């Protein structure tokens, strides 16, 4: 998994230059300024370069200006903090966060889908359920954390629940929007076949909603990581979120920043995985030049 797949998350309307492909005028114009496009050809080059550039600028800024390391440590100094903690502890923290994020995310998807279907199917259900969803979404997790902990104890359960609560709403909203945006013709095609109603969802509305669903999945995967981290702030003794908070409160900032780095890397990787899943399983749902 590398950074190249990020680019798949977006594209221009112009197809790539390919001697046998239909080229639109936009592509022809692009041929005049080919540097960027040539670089696109090497997978991961551009995103990689961007991040490297950022790190270099950061290093330079911190070495030229007298920025104290407790405000913004230099990347090299952050990198040096890797020794501060044994490798297996790093692994434990990463794994704890990843585990909670993934379990919460998967549960969220599994519940969001039927809920979105119910909301799409019935206006009555929708009228009853939507306000509750907004209520849940707008309740700050930190405020109800004590209840969650008291009810669910102190294993993974409260953290998974918090992650679930944070990722759920965006998924439901995008799934519902997508299913409701299905063109009337396709719905009528389904109705005219007098199929069992749930097939209208599995074979028409859900496939049609795939771009919407993946838009929600992309938003939610980063929220899942955030959710796990927030949960660790609130209740945990391991995980990257705990580690960052812990390091910060002990004034060990390079180490906290390194934790942040791992976190960001985890998010990027998971995000790219979602993009990859879309590309592999639903190529038709992406612009043609992205498959």
């Amino acid at each position, binding site marked *: 998994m590398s950074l190249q797949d990020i680019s798949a998350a977006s594209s221009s309307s112009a197809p790539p230059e390919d001697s046998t492909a239909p080229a639109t005028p936009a592509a022809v114009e692009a041929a005049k300024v080919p540097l960027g496009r040539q670089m696109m050809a090497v997978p991961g080059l551009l995103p990689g370069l961007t991040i490297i550039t950022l790190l270099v600028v950061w290093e330079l800024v911190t070495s030229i200006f007298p920025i*104290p390391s407790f405000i913004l440590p230099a990347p090299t100094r952050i990198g040096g903090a890797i020794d501060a903690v044994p490798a297996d502890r790093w692994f434990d923290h990463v794994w704890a966060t990843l585990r909670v994020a993934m379990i919460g995310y998967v549960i969220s998807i599994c519940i969001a889908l039927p809920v979105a279907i119910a909301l799409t199917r019935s206006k009555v259900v929708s009228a009853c359920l939507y306000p509750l969803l907004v209520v849940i979404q707008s309740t700050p997790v930190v405020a109800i954390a004590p209840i969650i902990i008291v009810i669910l104890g102190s294993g993974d359960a409260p953290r998974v629940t918090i992650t679930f609560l944070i990722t759920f709403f965006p998924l439901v909203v995008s799934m519902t929007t997508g299913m409701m945006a299905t063109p009337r013709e396709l719905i009528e095609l389904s109705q005219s076949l007098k199929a069992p109603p749930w097939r209208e969802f599995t074979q028409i509305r859900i496939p049609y909603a795939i771009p919407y669903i993946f838009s929600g999945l992309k938003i939610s995967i980063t929220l899942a990581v955030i959710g796990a981290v927030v949960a660790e702030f609130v209740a945990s003794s391991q995980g990257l979120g705990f580690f960052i908070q812990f390091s910060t409160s002990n004034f060990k900032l390079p180490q906290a920043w390194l934790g942040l780095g791992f976190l960001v890397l985890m998010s990027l990787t998971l995000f790219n995985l979602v993009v990859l899943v879309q590309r592999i399983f639903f190529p038709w749902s992406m612009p043609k030049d992205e498959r």
Partner: protein
Amino acid sequence: LDQVTFQLDWLPGGDKSPIYVCIEQGFCEEAGIEVTIEQGRGSSEAVTKLATGISDIGTAGLGALMAATITEDVPVTAVMSYFNQGPHAFYTLEGNGIATVEDVRGMTIATSPFTSSNVYLPLVLADLGMTEEDIVLNKMDPGALGPTLMTGQADAIIAWVVDITRYTTQAEEAGKDIVVIPWSTAGLELYSASVVANDTFLAERPDVARRFLEAYQRSIVFASENPSEAAEAVVSVVPELDLAAIEGGVNDAMLLVFNEVTEADGLGAFEAGRLAATWERVAAAQGFDVDALDPETIVDRSFLPTN
């Protein structure tokens, strides 16, 4: 072995060293107790967890327990004092022109939004004939306090004396010198962090509670005498921590445990006058009726080891 869940009121650090000493030095085991540590996120959260029985015994600010008792009548009782002075202090830099608490008049002070220090601040100021109007108070994330002080965005910050070593290290990096002005120097006398326990635990397993407190007290003494070994005990459980920093933290914390008050009343004691004074301060600060609670009802001295 008897199982006991120990509730911290915050993340592990030097000031939490006794429970780690208890485990690592085998004091708890010798007392026939196996301890599980439950980390905390503030005194209120710790009290809630103790009240619901998630944990059996732990540390929490006495002020928080008082507030919880008067508003919600939580089934939690204080059994031993830990910090017999308020840890609250102003931190300022050499050259900022603040030498005593009185000097903060007209200064910009940064504090974190939810620290219990904020509650006592008006009282300290009032003792000196000031109100919060006389200073500029900015509330911000605790992590931002140090940087704000070092960059001169604040003239002083409010933090606990257990953090002297940490802030000193940070100031050194910025080439500055820290000055710490504990509020106790301005006459704020109170118990703060204390050992508190779930009432059911105390009622059903008084013997365990007693044995635990004895081992815990032994650990406190050990930590104050052997700060570097105490720090090692913490770091061996929490390797993310830095030995030198924790040792500093242990030393800083022990100033609040062993001092002239300890000499007068003994380790872990709840002296009636000081306890009443603490309640008066809490009541005044939070707007409770002083008569609504007899502070004696929230403490139980019967579990204290007789030393």
